[in-house]
């Protein structure tokens, strides 16, 4: 690379005593596509936020075209030609797509018709199938992402930072997106590409930088990297997921435990049917908004199915209908939430109290009074079983790491002695060591005869842990694969078509 357009030297960003970024150097050339890779919490977003003026560095120097610059606000960065497309979108939901696209460029008197025509032409030029007249609030996640991308491209930026741009795009949309990136590169626009999809990074990038725990691990030409090397750099060992093929001891279906028949709930779950079998891990894959979570929530009583012709759920040979989770729990059906911070635990309670809540909710406490010693005993057993790393069981759950929080949430559910467990995104935001432990735990559960469902958006996880794989699309299960017969592309094809 000749002289870089952007040079970040010795960047440090501290939040209190914690260093989110610790002495990282980063360079970006003109017309370069540079992938920034790392696990959750590695510091990718923080580094780019400092570049785009969202976060102020604790120390370090940013140079643009060889001159030191300081961006106090995102507007400063934008004026310098640096744009960021965020994971969480920043559109105004009550405005139309066209209005969002041209926001900030409005004239004193605007005629809407030319605005919409220009927006239409611009979106078409990017091959984005989005209606410029539509209100942003009516768009799905993927379409909002497209509008975000289009807005950044329209600003004639010199540098665009894409933070997980493809997470919610379909394969066709991804194809168009990568073509767009290549076109931007031809126009000498520099791209910083943050993604967890390693194959995408390898395919599209000129150079790759890997961060781990806020520190730079390595930077190099993309052609010198492969998947194994990237993972080794990201996690500090070979792989986060134990193999990405079917488990060696995949189990055939046992007795049918739960049968979902033509279940419907609004537009989220549409006439879906599937069965769950004892002793099996059933993986459910689907794109965002495909109705996986809602289906699990309806079965476990968190949400209610349609009042009229909402379908049936059979638990063994008995039709059941739960209006609250408590009755489902009493029948042994438990849902472990994907949003543990909002729904999974009481953040101002201790580990023991949280696990105790599960114990009490299941109705195992037979006496009229709750003995703290009983709760402590139960908590001690489960934290020991799950290796929850905490000073004591009196520590508050909010103070634990993501992985340990997740273990507490799982323990709180398993203390209820369930027959059927739905794990919704069980390893989201969890570090690699905890992922392996949670996977081991899930396997142990299923091998002990419990029916386990793992809902995940991460295909390698689904492939590695499932005895059978169901694919959800538009609110219904559309395909089933046995372990060992499924590949990522066939699963994705079923999820999209």
């Amino acid at each position: 690379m000749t002289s870089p357009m952007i040079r970040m030297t010795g960047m440090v960003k501290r939040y209190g005593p914690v260093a989110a970024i610790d002495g990282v150097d980063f360079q970006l050339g003109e017309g370069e596509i540079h992938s920034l890779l790392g696990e959750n919490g590695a510091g990718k977003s923080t580094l780019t936020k400092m570049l785009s003026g969202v976060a102020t560095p604790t120390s370090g120097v940013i140079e643009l075209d060889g001159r030191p610059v300081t961006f106090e606000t995102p507007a400063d960065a934008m004026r310098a030609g640096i744009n960021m497309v965020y994971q969480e979108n920043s559109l105004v939901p009550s405005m139309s797509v066209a209005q969002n696209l041209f926001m900030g460029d409005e004239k004193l008197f605007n005629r809407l018709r030319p605005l919409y025509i220009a927006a239409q032409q611009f979106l078409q030029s990017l091959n984005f199938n989005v209606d410029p007249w539509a209100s942003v609030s009516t768009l799905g996640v993927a379409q909002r992402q497209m509008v975000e991308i289009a807005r950044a491209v329209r600003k004639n930026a010199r540098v665009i930072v894409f933070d997980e741009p493809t997470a919610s795009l379909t394969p066709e949309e991804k194809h168009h997106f990568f073509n767009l990136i290549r076109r931007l590169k031809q126009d000498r626009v520099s791209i910083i590409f943050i993604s967890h999809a390693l194959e995408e990074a390898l395919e599209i990038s000129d150079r790759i930088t890997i961060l781990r725990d806020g520190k730079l691990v390595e930077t190099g030409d993309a052609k010198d990297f492969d998947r194994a090397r990237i993972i080794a750099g990201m996690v500090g060992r070979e792989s986060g997921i134990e193999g990405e093929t079917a488990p060696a001891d995949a189990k055939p279906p046992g007795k049918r435990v739960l049968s979902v028949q033509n279940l419907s709930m609004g537009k989220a779950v549409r006439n879906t049917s599937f069965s769950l079998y004892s002793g099996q891990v059933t993986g459910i894959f689907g794109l965002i908004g495909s109705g996986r979570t809602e289906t699990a929530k309806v079965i476990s009583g968190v949400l209610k199915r349609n009042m009229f012709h909402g379908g049936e759920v059979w638990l063994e040979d008995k039709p059941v209908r739960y209006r609250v989770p408590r009755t489902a729990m009493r029948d042994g059906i438990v849902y472990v939430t994907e949003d543990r911070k909002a729904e999974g635990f009481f953040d101002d309670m201790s580990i023991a109290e949280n696990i105790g809540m599960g114990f009490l909710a299941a109705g195992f406490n037979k006496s009229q009074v709750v003995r703290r010693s009983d709760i402590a005993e139960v908590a001690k057993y489960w934290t020991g079983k799950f290796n929850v790393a905490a000073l004591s069981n009196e520590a508050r759950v909010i103070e634990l790491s993501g992985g340990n929080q997740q273990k507490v949430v799982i323990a709180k559910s398993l203390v209820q002695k369930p027959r059927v467990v739905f794990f919704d995104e069980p390893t989201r935001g969890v570090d690699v060591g905890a992922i392996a432990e949670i996977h081991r735990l899930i396997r142990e559960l299923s091998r002990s005869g419990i029916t386990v469902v793992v809902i995940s958006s991460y295909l390698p996880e689904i492939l590695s842990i499932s005895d059978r794989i169901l694919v959800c699309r538009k609110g219904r299960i559309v395909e089933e694969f046995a372990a060992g017969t499924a590949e990522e592309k066939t699963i994705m094809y079923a999820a999209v078509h």
Partner: protein
Amino acid sequence: MIGFLKGVRDRIRGGGEYAITVPPMDGALRPNNDLEEASVLVEAQAPGHLSDVDGALWFASGREVMRVGPDGTCEAMRQLPSEITALAVRPGPEIFAACADGSCDLPEGYSLDALPAAARRCVTAIGAGPGGEVYLAVGSLENGAGDWSKDLLERRQTGSVWRLERGAPASQLVGGLAWPAGMIAPGDDLLVTEASRGRLVRASRNGAITPVLSNLPGYPAGLCPDRAGGYHLCIMAPRNQLIEFILRERDFVEEMIATTDRDHWIAPSLKAPETFLEPLQGGALKQLGIMKPWAPSRSIGLVMHLSEDFVPTRSHHSRADGKNHGTTSCALWRGDLVVASQGNNRLLLLPQEGGRA
């Protein structure tokens, strides 16, 4: 009173008895093309009621009792006055056959005289018991043996199982069944398929019924024991939501039966479509040239293997885009599984572990 109110609530909300739902075909019932890819043993008109006796395979085809010898040659052994509706063969050979016109062909000493005339016209299965006795399944007292779909639409439950012994009048063992379509007597108890209720029941000699496999995704027919333990169970047609809905619309059903040609009824069928007038045969879910396995077809080929405790463990399918539908009967012959496809007029050979094929 509470039951009445619950019924009203279910009717309004589509729950309980009024839930228009169908169990999914997944897990061990995940669709494949085994029956479509199976080799053809014999082509014959509407074959059924298979039994393996002394190394020969016996079956009914139209009015004829057929035999496939150990060398694979097929010959007609007997011709009866009308279409055979049930057949069983015991070593000897002793042939037990019932016909659609109420006549029968039984060994000396056996008689169906004790059966009502309507029952004699609707004998759907005959099973040989271990002690020399024979059991007969009567599908319905209101309809003939070829009127299963009509009996289903009318929601009749007048089927029964009878015990037949040499020199003694037939006696009714069990009544109130919804079209028993297959039966075996593997031990002290009988296993009977109730086609219209979609279940497999165990009937004890004292007449008690215990469901052993309920809520099947199709209408079960014949079954046979597996050599390695468990059973093979034939499903002659799939259940689907449209038909479940129709079954609850009595006025519509009456009008359809009265005014519409039988081939075009919205009802389960034993054969794949031959005319575009067929309602909704695999119609809704063919996408990108691929017939989705859950297509709402009226006919299907499906044989499922059950473990000894009646858990489905594997299955063989002919899907909505296939032809080998209407699987009504199966038997083990020379170690391999032979399946009768009434919808495609052929006997199919499915090689089994340790078989000769």
